[in-house]
């Protein structure tokens, strides 16, 4: 394996395919790097060429020193960094075009008068966007205006959520929690007093406390004497005082005639 030959082929191909320019190479292969790593005969050749050339630019340096010499004498990590940036530039140019094409004119970056982003920074932006975590849940998401809480005001968002809560279930609490299973079957008399209303965290400072406003959800439980309906589950002891209801024998069911029931003889067995 020869990493130097790989670098030579890669950089030569990149220059031939116009994926990079000599200036792109010299952004990494700075004069300081060249002075530190290039042997002195190569420096002599470079100085001679530069003194004899009418114009000195990156192409002069790269052409004079040569890609093979650069790849042979410069550190591999530096060469790899340069090559990676060239690749990111080439791929980033395609990656930045594709989302704009998909988004259509809605994307402001796709506006014809918008300045074209630098390919290198665009590639980095695409890469970082893909690596970034999703936005926080508290941030308003585009398209959420249909739920009636399109405003970014946290208080209005909370109002919208509370309105939705009233339409969904009357058992929702202020905090949006649904009572545990079985809690809805509790008798109103046994219902615990509602917890002290808390001001939502999104309420701006200085705003009147919303908990003081009357809410159909959190009115205090009615007293027992104010109830205007019969509570079936309220078993009292007055049934004991009632007279026995007469029952005819025809109304009784002879369970012993059923084949699947246990006969009375089996029940009469003494327990062991």
């Amino acid at each position, binding site marked *: 394996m020869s990493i130097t030959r790989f670098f030579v082929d890669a950089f030569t191909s990149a220059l031939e395919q116009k994926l990079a320019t000599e200036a792109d190479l*010299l952004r990494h292969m*700075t*004069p*300081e790097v*060249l*002075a*530190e790593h290039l042997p*002195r*005969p190569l*420096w*002599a*050749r*470079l*100085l*001679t060429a*530069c*003194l004899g*050339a*009418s*114009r*000195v*630019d*990156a192409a002069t*340096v790269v052409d004079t020193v040569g890609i093979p010499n650069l790849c042979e004498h410069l550190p591999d990590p530096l060469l790899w960094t340069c090559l990676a940036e060239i690749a990111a530039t080439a791929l980033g140019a395609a990656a930045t075009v594709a989302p704009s094409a998909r988004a259509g004119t809605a994307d402001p970056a796709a506006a014809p008068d918008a300045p074209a982003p630098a390919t290198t920074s665009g590639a980095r932006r695409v890469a970082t966007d893909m690596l970034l975590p999703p936005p926080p849940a508290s941030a308003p998401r585009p398209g959420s205006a249909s739920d009636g809480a399109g405003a970014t005001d946290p208080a209005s968002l909370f109002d919208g959520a509370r309105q939705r809560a009233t339409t969904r279930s009357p058992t929702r609490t202020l905090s949006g929690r649904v009572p545990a299973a079985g809690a809805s079957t509790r008798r109103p008399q046994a219902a615990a007093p509602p917890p002290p209303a808390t001001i939502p965290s999104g309420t701006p400072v200085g705003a009147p406390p919303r908990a003081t406003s009357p809410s159909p959800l959190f009115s205090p439980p009615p007293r027992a004497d104010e109830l205007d309906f019969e509570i079936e589950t309220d078993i009292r002891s007055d049934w004991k005082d009632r007279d026995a209801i007469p029952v005819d024998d025809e109304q009784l069911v002879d369970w012993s005639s059923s084949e699947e029931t246990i006969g009375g003889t089996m029940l009469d067995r003494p327990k062991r």
Partner: protein
Amino acid sequence: MLESGLEHKIFAPSDLLAHATPDVLANHLPPDLLSKVLASSLAAGAMTPERVLETVTPMEMSRHVPHEVLWACIAAAAARAGVTTSGKA
């Protein structure tokens, strides 16, 4: 001497670099000076003897380039000026 010769135009920067050739400079100048020479030339778009001497000052030149080379430059300039012909007996 180098600075005075340049100031009084006894010799030109090109005369100095005719002796302090790129090969000499490349072999004796420290890396930081070499990088400065190349960087200034890239920034200006050309490398001329004047620009090289702006970076590699006569003081730096006398510090790093062999004195024989520098003296040969001075002697050649003196010969061109005709000050070395007084030795005839």
